[in-house]
Every structure is written in C-alpha cells, then in structure tokens.
C-alpha cells in the first residue's frame, strides 16, 4: 500500500497519531473496531451487499467480483487484457473500500496462473468486521407477531400417503413405508430429513441462473436459495422484509436478475420461509421454530395420539409435530390402515433409540397411555445396558500372574482385567505391549 493509502485509512477510521505511527502499529489497530461503524455507514447499499458477499465466501477474492458493482471495461471484452478490463475497477475498489479501511488488499504470489500484477490482487473482508456490517436491506419492518409457516405441503403429502394405504406411491410423493419404517425418499423420516427435503424442493423451484463463460465470470456466486437464506439471516429479532428488498443484494450475490417474489413464495410454500401479511403487503423471514404445528403444543400428546381398541397407537397426522412423529417412528412399526397411521412398539428399534429417548416426556406418556408401549418400555428398562458388545479392542490370555501384574503396572488404566487370565487393551497399545512383553523375556503367541 502506498503512503496515500495509509493516510486515507488513518483518516477514514480515525486512528490517532500513535495508533498509526508506523505501518506495524496500523496493522495492529486495523482489525479493531476503531472507527469501523462510521466507515461502514458511509458505504452505498451495493457496496454493503458486496461486503456481505465477501463475508459469505470467506477467504479472499480477486478483482472480477467487484465488477458486479463497479463494472468493468466492456468494450471489445475478449480483445482486452485483464489489466485493461479491470484497471478502473481496481481504482474504484481502492478508493471506495480499501482507503475506507474496511477491506484488506494484498498481492497473491502463489497463484501460478496470474501473470500480471492486476491479476494477483486479492481482497479480503476481515471476519472481525462481520458483526459491524450494516443490514443489506434498505428498510426492514418490525412486527412482534408470529408469521405463517406453511406446513400444508408436507401435510398434504402425509394425507395422500395415508389415503393411498398400501397402494402404489403417487408421483412426486416421496413418503412410503418400508418394513414398518416411514421413509422420506431413501432416508428414514426425521425432522432433519424433512428440512433437507423441503430445501431441495425449494431449490428445485428456484434454479440458479446460467453461469457465464469463465473468461467473463465475475467471481463465484451462491445459488439463489443459499443467498436468500444468508441475507434473511441478517435480520434481527422480530424483523421482517419485503421481497423487493432482496432484489439489490441478490443481484450482487447471484450476479443476475431473479424473480425474488416467486422465490420467496416458493420458499414459503415449501415451509422454508415464514410470511406475514400486513396492510396488503407480504413480509418474509426465516422460520423462528422448526416443524411446529400451529394449534398444538408439544406436550399435549393426547391431542394427536390415541390408543386404539386393538392396542395400536393412532397418530393424527394433521396435528402431530414432526419431531414427535420422528420419535415414534424411531421406536415403532408404523402401518397405514383404514386411513389412519398406526404404530406398534418394535423392540429392536426401541433398543437402538432407547439411549437417546430415555427420559423424554413422550415415553412417559406412552407408558401411561398405551399398554403395548408400556410393556415394551418395561422390557427395555429391564434389558437395556445389560448386554454390551465391545469391539475394536484387543483381547489376550495372560496365564502368568507376574506378567499380568507387570502389564497393569506398566500401562495403568489401559489394561482391563476381565477375569483371572484374560485382559483387554486398546488396539493402539499393541506395539507398546509387544515391546514390553519382549523386553520381559516373554513371547506373544497369536490365535
């Protein structure tokens, strides 16, 4: 950096003479918050959006990405050299961002593809500055209300799935039962799987714009959904935003014009965004809670679970919270009969999930209200933890007492005495044990 750059940074950030007495001192104080808010406050919305993009990417970026806001030499594009294309862009970046003390600038000499100085410039937004980045939106609204989280899509699928029963799955409905296990596509149903599936659906509705040729590409862009999620994560508590507010930052993020309205609607339809209608306008934000079902509290199991006369548990798919459905699926055999989803306890599944679900209120409710589950839970309580299969360890018969004692003393806490003649020890200890046994004049025989 030239002296002019250093002076400009000092002035823009308001460093004192002592703080900027030398470059080393300046480097020390550069990453502090001194004058940072004020420096960021004077940036344009486009520049803020770009800094958000740099923050999203992490690492450093070369000049082309800045052409998204500062443009580049467009005439005879392919006939121009890199330096000719981005000379002005570089100037703009330097004056607008670097000299404001909000962006780091350095040469990357490791890039073997870079042939000129211009190509070697790299710019990085320090992660220390991220908490001070202003909102990428022009204006945000504040409403202390719950929005509408669309769960209909999945509920519709559940309903259709129940109605279909054991018939052929409908195209586009990934739900099916395989040996008593509810599957969402190829995965066992879970809130996590559902969330990922929703995002996949949303992404499918908002495909990324076509990537331009490498020569004219202006940096890497995230896909629109990821960009929207990042931008909406910048909202504070009770903050909402209109879709139009996303237009400019998305243009910077994705380097393309997108139908923001359609993207937000699709996000809401697939349960990935919350929306709120106020005065004829629809605001959006990321969901506050995952998988909550409106109108039902988590603790009120009786609202959607009922023990049927034939001892199976009937699940109201319209009202059951998805995480409860996940937990029930983890310990039961599910089946569809007479337009209802029924659950019977499965001891094998219960054994696998017992450790993670133990103590949960669902199990307590099942024990009180569903006798088959109560019986299974009693068995689980009685049997779980009593039979352990230890693997990835080494087992040996040491028939010499003196040798056993020597081993215990040489490797305290690592040799487990199983019985009079048998010991166990971790695999990584084998080399040390072999050395020690050899040193003491014994031989290891292998069976």
């Amino acid at each position, binding site marked *: 950096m030239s002296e002019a750059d250093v002076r400009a940074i000092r002035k823009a950030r308001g460093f004192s003479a002592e703080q900027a007495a030398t470059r080393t001192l300046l480097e020390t104080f550069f990453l502090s918050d001194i004058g940072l808010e004020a420096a960021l406050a004077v940036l344009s919305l486009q520049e803020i959006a770009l800094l958000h993009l740099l923050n999203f990417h992490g690492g450093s970026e070369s000049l082309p990405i800045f052409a998204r806001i500062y443009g580049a030499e467009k005439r005879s594009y392919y006939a121009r050299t890199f330096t000719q294309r981005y000379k002005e862009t570089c100037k703009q970046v330097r004056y607008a961002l670097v000299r404001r003390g909000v962006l780091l600038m350095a040469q990357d000499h490791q890039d073997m593809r870079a042939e000129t100085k211009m190509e070697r410039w790299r710019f990085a937004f320090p992660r220390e500055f991220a908490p001070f980045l202003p909102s990428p939106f022009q204006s945000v609204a504040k409403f202390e209300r719950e929005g509408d989280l669309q769960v209909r899509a999945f509920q519709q699928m559940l309903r259709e799935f129940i109605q279909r029963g054991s018939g052929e799955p409908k195209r586009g409905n990934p739900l099916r039962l395989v040996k008593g296990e509810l599957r969402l596509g190829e995965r066992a149903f879970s809130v996590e799987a559902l969330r990922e599936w929703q995002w996949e659906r949303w992404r499918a509705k908002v495909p990324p714009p076509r990537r331009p040729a490498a020569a004219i590409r202006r940096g890497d862009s995230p896909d629109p959904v990821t960009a929207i999620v990042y931008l909406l994560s910048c909202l504070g508590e009770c903050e909402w935003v209109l879709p139009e507010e996303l237009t400019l930052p998305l243009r910077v993020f994705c380097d393309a014009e997108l139908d923001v309205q359609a993207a937000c609607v699709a996000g809401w339809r697939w349960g990935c965004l919350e929306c709120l209608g106020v005065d004829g306008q629809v605001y959006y934000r990321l969901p506050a809670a995952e998988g909550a079902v409106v109108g039902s509290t988590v603790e009120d199991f009786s609202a959607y679970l009922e023990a049927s006369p034939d001892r199976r548990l009937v699940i109201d798919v319209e009202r059951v919270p998805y995480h409860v459905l996940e937990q029930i699926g983890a310990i039961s055999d599910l089946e569809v009969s007479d337009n209802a989803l029924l659950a019977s306890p499965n*001891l094998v599944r219960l054994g696998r999930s017992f450790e993670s679900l133990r103590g949960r209120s669902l199990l307590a409710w099942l024990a009180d209200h569903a006798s088959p589950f109560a019986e299974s839970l009693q068995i689980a309580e009685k049997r779980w933890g*009593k*039979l352990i*299969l230890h693997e990835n360890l080494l087992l040996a018969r040491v028939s010499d007492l003196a040798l056993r004692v020597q081993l215990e003393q040489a490797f305290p806490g690592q040799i487990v005495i*199983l019985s009079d003649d048998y010991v166990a020890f*971790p695999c990584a*200890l084998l080399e040390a044990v072999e050395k020690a*046994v050899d040193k003491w004049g014994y*031989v290891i025989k292998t*069976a």
Partner: protein
Amino acid sequence: MSELETVDVQGLDIFENPCDLRRDLHVFMHYVQERQVQRLYRDNALRKADYRRLAKLMTDLGAKEEIEREGYSSWVDFVDKMALKLGFVHYDTKGVYVGYSSASPSFPDNVIDVQTESYQRFLQLSMDLQEHCLLDALIKERDGCNSEFYHWSILGRLDPFSSRGCATGIVPKLDFVRARRFLLGRLQSCPAGAWYSTASLIQHLKREHPFFLIPQRPEYTYKGEAQRVGRYGNFYEGTSRWGDNNRIPDEATDAFERVEGRYVERFLEGAPLVLGYVDVAYAVGPEQEIYPSLGQLEAFRVRERLRQALNREIPRPNVTVQPNFEVYVESLFYPASVMQQLDGLVEVVSEGLLTVLRLRKELVSARVAEDETLDVVSILARLSGQELPPNVDRELSEWSAHSDKFLLYEGLALLEGEEEALPPADPFTVERISPCLRLVRSVDALFGRLEKAGLLPLRVRHPDDGWASLPEGVRTLFPRPEPEPPTIEPVRLLRQVRVTLHVPEAEIWERIRQVLIEMRCPVEARRDDLTISFSQTYQAQVDEAVASLDGDFDLCVEDVD
C-alpha cells in the same frame, strides 16, 4: 597312482581354498528367503546393497573390497548361479528387448523366486547325495566354450585359451563331463595329504590315457575341418595375451602338454579346488612368457574329502548337546540340514569343522509360539542320537511352555452380559472366559441375532487409543474415561526493550551511524526517517558513540515517552 612324483612345495605359492561353497549356498538361500531380492533392470545383476549384505555373511574375505572396487563380487555371483543351477531359485535370465532398437535385453521386475520345495528336498538328502548334487552341478557343463579351456576358474589364476573359434573344430564335440569324471577318478587314487607334481600327472596321462579328453579320431563340427583345423586347431598360444598367436601344431612333440596339459592344470583350479578336494601350489617366478600360461600350477595335494565325496562315505555330522546349552556340530562338510533344523533356535558362536551353537530361550519360545507342533527336545535328541542332559531337557520344556504365557486373540470382540445363558450368542462364541464374558466372532451377525431376540444389545466401538464413554446406567467392567482437568502450564514471555533515536539532521545521523558501524554495534539505521533503533542491551555503546561526537556537535538525548 604310484608313478606320480611328490614335490617339495617350499618356495611355491600355496593356495588352499578359504571359501566354503556349501555354507555360502545356504547363506544365500537364507538371505533370499527372508527378503524380496530384485535384480537390476539392465544387466540382471544383484543390487550393490545385496552384494554388500551377502559379502558380510559369506566366506570370501575379499568380497567386500571387490564390491567397492568393481561394484560386484564374483564369489557372490558364483554362489547365485549355483543356486539357480541347482533349482533352489528361479529368475529370468533371458530378459526382454524393450525398445525397437534395443541392443541388449532388459530385465524388468526380475525378482528372485525361491523354489522352496526343491530346496527342502535337497536339505532332506543325505550329506553324500547333497555333495553329489553339488559336484554334478559343477562338472556337468557341456558347452565347450564354457569349459576350462576358455574360462577363468572362479578361484583360479591361470588364464584360459583365446575363445576364438571355440564353437568350431573339435571342441563342441568333446565330452568334458566324461573327462572331468575321469580326472576325478585319477585324483581319487592319489593318497591324500601329499603334494604331487602336476607335470608328472600330465606325463602319466600322456603315457597311459592320451585320449582321455580328445579322442584318437576326434569328431569335427564342420566338414573339412579335419584337414583345415586339425586336432589342436582350436588352441592358440603366443608371447602376448592380445597379440598374434599361433595354432598349436598337431605334430609338435609337446602338443599334448600344451593342450591337454593346460586343461589338467585348469581342471585342478575348477571343481576340485572350489569344492575343497585339492589344494594347489603355483610357481613364484618371473613374468609370464607364454599365453596362456603353462606349467604355473606346479603341484597339487588331494584332500581326504575327495575320497569321502566320491565314495559316498561322508560321515554324518556329530551333534552333541552340552549341559551349558551349547550344541557342538562336528562335520567335515558344512552340515546344512542340521543348521536348517536348528535355525531360529540357536545363535552361532563359532563356525568351522566344529561349529558351536547356543540355545536361546527367547528364540525357542518365539519359534514354538509360531509353530505349536515344534518339539525342540525331539529335534535335538534325534540330531544328537542320544538323550539330552536332564537340565537342558527340563529347561527346553519350560521354554516351550513359556510361549503360551501370552496368547493374543485377533479379530474377536467381547460380549459382556449379566446372564450366563445366552443361546443366540452360542454359535458365535469362541471362548467363555467367565459366566458373563465371552469372546465372540462375526460381530455384525451376532449383533443382528441379539437384536432380533429382543435383547436390546448395546454395541460399543472403542477408539483405537482408549476406552469409549459408556452411557449412564450401563454396568460394565470397563473404566469410564473421565474428562481430564485442564492443566495450566506456565508460559514464559520474553521481553525485549528496543530504543529508537530520532535524529533531526541527516549529517548527524550519518556520523552516529558510522561510529556505531566502527564499533560493530548492531543497530537498525533508517535513512528515510533518520532513526536508529537498537536493543536496550547496547545502550552503553550507543551512548558512547553519541558522546564521541561531542567535539563537533552539542548533542543531548531527550526521552519522548
């Protein structure tokens, strides 16, 4: 053969073969069995590293020096070729022509392949038969161009005839094997221990067996050679090695001495010397006047082992086990079979006609650990032909039992439960080590079986370097790793104080700098801001430098902060 003259060898250069082919052959086999030996790509030789290691183990004392000088050892090569000839090893000797215009073959990935069965069969033969195989391998060379006429013996000094024309004339038709056996038979009839004149042997053969090598009417390779080449037409001699040499005329009165006589000399340097059947004595004298040399090998002495080998009377090795755990092996010939049976049980104390070995407890235990069926006591009793000393017998039994003290199970898991009876686990149980602990195999299948049986098993995979944390409520013998309390270790920060002098004028700055340079004081002098920075350690020197300018400038130092 009473007509042979005895000779006083005083003044002659006596050579007794120090190399033991039998021993070195087995050393070579041991070496290639223990490691993968790959031959060189271009010339198919052994690698220098292998040469060096083998030279250390073999009996040719000059091998090391030869390797450093030439890059190979001819004795090691000889042993290597013998092993190949005997079928103990196999490797490619033909090679491939890799390139379109390759002038010589290459030998890619040519690894020495040990023919274990063949070697074991040899070791199981009696000493007589082993010796017979060795001798056969040496004398059954039928190619005339590779005969004693045209090749240096591995241990010999006598130069051969020029190989010019060796594939023509009578040489390809001569029966060298028969001739060699005949000569061995003649040597066998010489009493052992006396030095005999080689010339007298040659004269005896000329008189009694003139056609022992070249028949009276020899066969020729090509038509017309009888007239053109003649009986001795394959053999040239002269006054220099590389110069114009002349054929030995058939009609010369000493033609027999010059051809067959030379053969006999070189024969003595061949198989008989290599196998230690004879010793030889060379003339010490003026420079060689005739090529190839004639009459240089003046005397030879037959050893007892020649008779023993040819009559198949080689005594069995005498093995004695001492109470001090030493094993004495007395044998005129290297006791390969005995050594092979004791390999891995003993360490070698000394070698020779009497080889001294010592039984080692850790070696015996290790061997028994590898092979449960090994009965060391029986082996030693069989070899020695008698019972072992009682203390040795007792200790060996204990040493063998010692190998059972630590038995490591591989590939098994541990099933820990509270119930003794566990039918689903029975088919997978290898050993029950206590009522509630079992060593089991096929973990996946077992776990599935236990789950299906509704037993709610818990599967714990321990990390390689410790024990896994088990959930609360689980009853187990295994320790629960506790989180280690954070340790705060003392860290030393080193403080260095640096002082910077800001000088207002360039001229003063330059003067101070010059003085400091002359004083060899390490400072950082920056012209752009007229500063001089240094570690506080050098404060006194800098003060001295500043003070030295007192006559020219009125300087005082003021602290800024």
